[in-house]
């Protein structure tokens, strides 16, 4: 029993306790928020609003999962917002081009578009991973560079104009569709979260990511191939961002270079950090990050419904972020070091 507990938290009992505290805190806040809002405003639990929340939370959760993985390995991915935009315009452009070449063959059109979009994610992720792992440039600087470059390519392809010409079935039958009462994005997000949670707990890759983030030297000595796994985290992060870009494209019905952006990047980091991922690396769990993405989305939605000036809303996000991390630091400090 004890070993199982330790295995669940690579940093030992101290962080286990602080994570346990967080598990209690975040869902409690979430329930409080939902209960409070339901009491105040009946619109909040109306089906339209709930679907709206689920859709947005799913998109954020997918990006945040990738971001969390990179941070757990001790890195940073500032490029995710730009990848969302690039994947969106590339998917739309490819679909439009294939549709012009092979009109009517919807399967081919959609497959090529999705493949091109995800391909962008793989490419950016590989560049990030290569620069960080091989050239050993700091992850912050590398992804700062690729963020600018990726956003530039996205704008270059489109000149900032939305791209149309996708098959109708991709938009109506996939992006805006609902199955079992849930929007497509929610299904995709659930699958992504389940796969990521499984990977984190049960695969070597997941365990190595913890090991690398927790203590690189120890990981090297234990025979972990550091470079390959670091590249892996950046590729996963970029591919998930690309997936979000494709989902957004399908939902909106056009490819736009304005999707994602700095806002999505900052929110994904906020979700990861509020979800208990430590920027020191080695600590964090995907399922909590997903809950934290849901929490952030509902918070934004609640502020909107309460008619809080949208200009004032970033203040709340900022205060909550700092408070969450400060609480974690203080609780860490009050316990004796192991």
């Amino acid at each position, binding site marked *: 029993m004890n070993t199982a507990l330790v295995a669940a938290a690579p940093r030992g009992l101290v962080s286990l306790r602080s994570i346990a505290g967080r598990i209690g805190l975040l869902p409690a806040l979430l329930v409080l928020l939902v209960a409070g809002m339901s009491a105040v405003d009946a619109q909040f639990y109306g089906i339209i609003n709930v679907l709206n929340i689920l859709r947005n939370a799913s998109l954020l959760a997918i990006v945040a999962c990738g971001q969390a993985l990179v941070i757990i390995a001790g890195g940073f991915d500032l490029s995710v917002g730009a990848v969302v935009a690039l994947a969106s315009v590339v998917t739309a452009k490819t679909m439009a081009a294939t549709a012009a070449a092979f009109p009517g063959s919807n399967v081919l059109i959609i497959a090529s578009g999705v493949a091109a979009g995800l391909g962008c994610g793989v490419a950016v992720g590989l560049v990030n991973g290569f620069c960080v792992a091989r050239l050993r440039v700091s992850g912050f600087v590398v992804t700062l560079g690729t963020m600018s470059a990726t956003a530039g390519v996205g704008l270059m392809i489109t000149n900032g104009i939305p791209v149309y010409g996708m098959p109708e079935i991709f938009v109506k039958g996939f992006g805006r569709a609902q199955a079992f009462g849930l929007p497509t994005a929610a299904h995709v997000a659930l699958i992504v979260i389940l796969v990521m949670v499984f990977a984190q707990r049960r695969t070597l890759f997941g365990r190595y990511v913890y090991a690398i983030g927790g203590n690189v030297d120890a990981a090297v000595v234990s025979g972990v191939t550091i470079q390959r796994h670091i590249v892996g985290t950046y590729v996963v992060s970029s591919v998930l961002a690309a997936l979000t870009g494709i989902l957004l494209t399908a939902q909106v019905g056009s490819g736009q270079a304005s999707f994602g952006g700095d806002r999505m990047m900052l929110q994904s980091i906020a979700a990861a950090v509020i979800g208990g991922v430590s*920027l020191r690396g080695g600590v964090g769990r995907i399922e909590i990050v997903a809950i934290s993405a849901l929490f952030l989305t509902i918070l934004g939605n609640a502020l909107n419904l309460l008619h809080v000036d949208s200009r004032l809303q970033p203040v709340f996000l900022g205060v909550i972020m700092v408070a969450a991390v400060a609480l974690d630091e203080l609780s860490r400090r009050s316990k004796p070091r192991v």
Partner: protein
Amino acid sequence: MSDLELTVAANDTDRPKLTLGHRLWSAVLPIALAVLLLGFAAVDRGVLSPANLLNIAQQTSYLALFAMAQTVVILTRGFDLALGPTVSMVSVGSALAMAGATASGHGAVAVLLAGLGAGFALGIACGLFNGVVVALLGVNPFVATLGSYNIAIGIATTLSSGRPVQGVPAPFSQIFYSGSIFGVPAAIAITFAVGVGLHLLLARTVFGRSLYLIGTNPRAAAVAGLPVKRILVATYVLCSGLAALGAIMMTARTGSGEPNLGGALSLQAIAGAVVGGTSLAGGRGGVGTAVLGALFITILSNGMNLTRIDGYVQMVVLGAIVIIGVLLDRLRQERRQ
């Protein structure tokens, strides 16, 4: 104690014992700058015209100021993502204060003082917040300043209702933008003076040297008895104070308080510092690296504008340059060891 002095001394960028090869390596960026300038000049003669050179110097002075601000915190292994929003907030705040003072019928001097006071008060408040959260609460600088990033954006747009704030008096623009001292435009003169002062502060005072020690080895700094927390708070205040000065200069240039003035400045300032050779691992860099990096980025974008390179292509080039710059710097460091 002598050990500590050695650690600090080892971080001076130019030690006398360097060989010629090493010297060449540390000259990579200035050489690249010259090549860049000549390359652009080959395409368009206008690049080297006195008017454009003055223009470059003027543009550089803003970015250099922000890169210096950023360098101060990066030296201590910190970051200030909130720099851009701080600039926006100060711009809006000082414009509002000046408009208010003018409306209530105060004299020109009182109006100016109100604007400066409000601007610096907001900047220093932001720096205090960052410093307290980072140093006393022990929050990672990235998260702490990402938090104040959001808070400052919220305040800037709320104060201004998202619109430019009019009512910046002419003398204000005169002093901080269009005026000149001994024929040197105000922005350049101010940045030069600040640069000299900051260089002396970093290189010649105990406070300055302790920043390098904290960045190189925080434990050693604490063991040596430095008041690390107090110094860190002062560092963030200094950074935001410099940002506030830059914001005032930019407000004087635009002639109104702009809630979007800071825009991408946080990352640009970090890029400027880092391209110039400031190490994100702390303890290495200074006024020189900040100015060099800012100059490099400004010349690059000025040259690309004059040679009519598409703005979107410029984003790609800048991204690549940031990565290459840091990579070169790392190689240079390895050669040195």
